[in-house]
């Protein structure tokens, strides 16, 4: 189990290394990855695949909401909740 604070750098490293980002410094942890065009629908599926490979998390249909995946901080918080829940 990891805290959200511990997870943020890991999620950030994944996002910045896997998606086209012109200026990594401009992407705050709370910025909307979808509004910035960093993660689109296919990118979202890649995030899900990464969550499955890295954390053994299977994202349920009902969990597919922006509050869980629209920013680095949201993804980290989601992973924290899921891993804490076991």
């Amino acid at each position: 189990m990891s805290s959200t604070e511990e997870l943020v750098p890991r999620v950030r490293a994944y996002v910045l290394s896997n998606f086209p980002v012109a200026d990594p410094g401009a992407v705050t942890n709370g910025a909307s990855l979808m509004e910035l065009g960093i993660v689109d629908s296919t990118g979202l599926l890649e995030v899900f695949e990464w969550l499955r490979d890295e954390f053994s998390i299977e994202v349920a249909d009902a969990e597919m909401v922006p509050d869980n995946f629209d920013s680095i901080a949201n993804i980290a918080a989601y992973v924290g909740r899921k891993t804490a829940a076991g």
Partner: protein
Amino acid sequence: MGDRGEFFPCGSRRLYGFLHEPRATEAPLAVAPAAVVFVHPFMEERQDAHPFLRSIAGQVSARGLWAMRFDLHGCGDSEGEWEDATVASWLDDIRAACDFVRAQAGVERVILCGLRFGATLAALADIGGPKPPLAMIQPVVKGTSYSMDMLRAYLAAEMVLTRKAGVSRDALIERLRLGETVNVFGYHLTAAQFDGIRAIDLSHSLASYPARSLVIDVVKTPTARASNELTALVAAMGPGSTLARAVEPQPLYAEGKVHLTRAEQVELALLGWLEALDQP
């Protein structure tokens, strides 16, 4: 005549194919004359995989074999509407492509190579005669999972577009049952396609595969876990089947940070397997 694109018949439709003539600009493979027919992945993956398939087909022809790429019914430049295609019609397309390349190349032997769902279709195709040598790059093994992934792609697109929760996959299946289609990356998935895909299980269909085969597990990093599913598939296929691992940091069939022009480890695995194909 050189490399060339041509339409060829499949029933009443025309499919578009691209032939790579053997050039042997590099050391020829020590294998009997043959044509390698490549089957593309589906939907969004087809577009993203195009540079890779073009590259690897070129590598094969540079080593002295014919290579052919083509567009399945309702895809790319081939005729026909996507909604009218079924798993059965896509399998017919592969047969037609093999017949065409045999006639054009003057070789009887065809080797099938596919990527993702293209590999799955290649594995199931009846191309006449005994089962062909088969190379599958990251194949879809279970249609149940793949069909649900397609529906998930719809949900992902809906979430990105509307910025809120969408319907469930169960609701999408209900729509299919009512005769509606589900728009997956612009392709209208039909109930017939969905059911045809769901029925596929390569572990069952390819048990004790009678010809040589290669399964390439493509991973992003050297430390990535091996696919249990592909390991089990190779075990089910029997002693003529080989499992190879290719580390490719850039995706072969998805948008990556860098435009992929070559997938060297996949090429090495495929060319090495072709080289050893006729050895006991």
